[in-house]
């Protein structure tokens, strides 16, 4: 019986170490790959930090800055600014916006920067946040986005002043 007990203890140790080692290895690999490569989109600050050149396709996400949304005369082209509260990028989009698209709400767009630092999107997805509330009320943790320099304060959105 003593031998049986030792073998069980041995299996316990081996199995525990194996599970911990595999989990640790996978998590280390994920963190080594870095947040950006595994993220669905870049936020405006990251776009500026990486100095992504015009014409390169990527996804840009953040909040639709309140007061920046406008519709062009053709009725199909929209202009708005995506902000992460630290940096802004102006966006133009021609197409249908999802129902949940609003100012002050999250959005994920896909497209390219043009020569003047405007992001020309061909896809716009609405990203709803984790807050739920009945109509007419405000959620407990409403997005409190206070821009450090005020919205549209001329944060480096033109390529000349970038970097």
């Amino acid at each position, binding site marked *: 019986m003593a031998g049986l007990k030792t073998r069980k203890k041995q299996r316990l140790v081996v199995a525990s170490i194996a599970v911990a080692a595999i989990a640790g290895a996978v998590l280390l690999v994920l963190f080594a790959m870095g*947040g950006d490569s595994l993220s669905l989109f870049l936020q405006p600050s990251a776009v500026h930090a990486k100095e992504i050149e015009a014409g390169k396709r990527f996804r840009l996400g953040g909040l639709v800055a309140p007061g920046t949304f406008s519709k062009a005369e053709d009725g199909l082209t929209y202009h708005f600014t995506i902000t992460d509260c630290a940096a802004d990028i102006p966006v133009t989009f021609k197409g249908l916006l999802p129902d949940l698209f609003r100012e002050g709400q999250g959005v994920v767009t896909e497209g390219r920067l043009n020569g003047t630092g405007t992001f020309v999107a061909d896809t716009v997805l609405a990203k709803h946040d984790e807050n*739920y509330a009945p109509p007419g009320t405000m959620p407990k943790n409403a997005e409190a986005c206070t821009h450090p320099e005020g919205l549209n304060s001329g944060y480096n959105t033109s390529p000349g002043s970038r970097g």
Partner: protein
Amino acid sequence: MHRFANPAEFNRLADAILPWAKVVMAAAFLYGLYLALYASPADYQQGESVRIMYIHVPAAWMAMFTYMVVAVASFTALVWRHPLALLAGKAAAPIGLVFTGLALLTGMLWGKPMWGTYWVWDGRLTSVLVLFFLYLGYMALWRALDEEDKAGRAASILALVGVVNIPIIKFSVDWWNTLHQPASVMRMDGPSMPVEMLWPLLTLAVAYKAYFVVVLLYRMKLEINLRKLSVLSSLEVQG
């Protein structure tokens, strides 16, 4: 623990639990669905579509919960060679597969009207799809080898390798930018939803768990009976 290693003892326990689990399941499903589909408010942003949440979120919780059951059962089976633990894992996996599929499907149906797309390859959606394939792999390994012992051991090892995916699913929305929103209920500073929405959600979560208990116990009883049957028929062949 070893008391339950005895199949007769297990059967007695299962028969004692089953009626209660069924009552809880029926009551929680009826009350939960009534609250979720009728007696709860719409959302200030999403409107009536928010009701998909009451089906989707408990399904996603079940997908992860069931995987943890399979993983713990596999660990117990590998270390202590506990035959009922092995059967528990085998019996639980298809339930987890179904709920993972339900979470993916309701998520897609919710994503189309809310996000504007059925699917994106973000951290949360992708890691849940991986979970779906882990369940499939576990079940396939059980069938891939003729010897029950070896098949069970191989499947159990796969289940343990895949357990790292559970924290990845949970924290994917915090570690990476995803289209999927962060947690609303299991978060440090308390749920970000009012009580009248939280209550139907938790009631349905209880209903799903009770369903799990009922189906798991029936499936384990079935496995035990199948085993008895195969022993009996082999005896007959010999006799």
